[in-house]
């Protein structure tokens, strides 16, 4: 009988706090007519080619190199992971919210890894105009004003915090009440992105090193 309070009390408290959190309630925020996409676009101008220094820690394995995000004239986006010596480790093509594996090296070619990486990059690349119902609100982040965007998509809840004053951007993706992935972005000095998974030993860091310009003319 003593097990009940031991096990259930923390769960109930957790439920209570999560369900009352302003960031967790889609129905409590203002339902706007359209998402101000420019404010809630994690990577900024989508026509630019972004080159990131990257590090992926997956359980005991570590991968480092360069991440390239390139938007093509047909509105598809390539997400390419390169080794330091420039060889392709992974090339994903994203269009109409679907990923296609263009190429992948054997050691990354595992469904669980690919699915997880695809989900992470979907969060960064997602076209918000495709999102149905959503809410907008204002909140306070560390004492400073921030804008809040909440929506459900693909059975997950997405919570975006955009603090232009702090130069930070945060996205939480949740399943039920549990946070599953946290994206921390700092824009004060270039762009740094940290992707932290709650239930998988996966940690990704991306640091913008170069913006190469616009579309390839092909």
């Amino acid at each position: 009988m003593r097990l009940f309070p031991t096990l259930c009390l923390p769960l109930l408290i957790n439920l209570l706090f999560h369900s009352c959190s302003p960031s967790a309630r889609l129905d409590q925020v203002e339902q706007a007519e359209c998402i101000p996409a420019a404010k809630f676009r994690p990577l900024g101008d989508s026509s630019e080619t972004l080159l990131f220094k990257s590090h992926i820690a997956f359980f005991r394995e570590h991968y480092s190199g360069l991440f390239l995000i390139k938007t093509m004239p047909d509105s598809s986006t390539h997400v390419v992971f390169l080794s330091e010596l420039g060889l392709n480790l992974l090339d994903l093509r994203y269009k109409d919210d679907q990923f296609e594996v263009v190429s992948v090296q054997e050691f990354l070619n595992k469904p669980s890894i690919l699915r997880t990486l695809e989900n992470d990059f979907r969060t960064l690349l997602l076209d918000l105009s495709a999102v149905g119902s959503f809410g907008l609100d204002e909140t306070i982040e560390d004492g400073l004003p921030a804008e809040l965007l909440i929506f459900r998509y693909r059975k997950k809840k997405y919570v975006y915090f955009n603090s232009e004053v702090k130069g930070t951007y945060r996205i939480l993706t949740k399943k039920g009440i549990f946070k599953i992935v946290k994206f921390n972005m700092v824009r004060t000095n270039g762009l740094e992105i940290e992707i932290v998974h709650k239930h998988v030993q996966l940690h990704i860091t991306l640091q913008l090193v170069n913006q190469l310009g616009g579309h390839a003319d092909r």
Partner: protein
Amino acid sequence: MKLKKTSLSFVSILTVFLLPIAITAGQGTFVPVADQEQLMEKINQNALEIESIQSSFIQKKQLEYLDETILSKGKFWFRKENNLRWAYEEPFEYAIIIHGGKFQIKDGEQISTYDIESNAAFREINDLIIGMVQGNLMERDKFDLNAFENEQQYLLKLVPREIQMRDVIDQMEVYFDKADLMVSEIVMRESEKDFTVITFIDRSINEIIPNAVFTTAY
């Protein structure tokens, strides 16, 4: 680059350190070398006489769908036996250091250390990088080799024999200056339009390189 502290797959190592074909404009047409065995003997003999090498390098990555070239620059230092510092300076600082049986990676302020002898994969990296900078990579039995020459250079085309390696690299070309039989350029080709070119410049041979160069504090 993939790094796994216990068991790294050979393919991932090759992904990082191997390479394919080349394109050299304005240097004359290459024709097959009449006596390939004799050339290999000369190159290997030259490698034996090298005690140390210092050089800057320029690395250019070309992707089929990218107008821009991804440019990296750096320096490397090699000293017999098995001491190497391969350091990128642009677009960000990153160094691979091999010294005293240890394999270290310095990524900004973050340093990771691996034991070469305890891990077959790091032994492969060790052999490959050092073979590459010395010019005796073609000794390895993992490639089919064809030698060509023009007035200024020898060109060795290496085609991986192993299927796993061919998944990563179509072909590698290594250019040697005839004047000193040193490697001047390496081209790694993953496909016809995806390739990486590493050009070595400002080389100096057999100068004293202090131990401090092969430490993370340097």
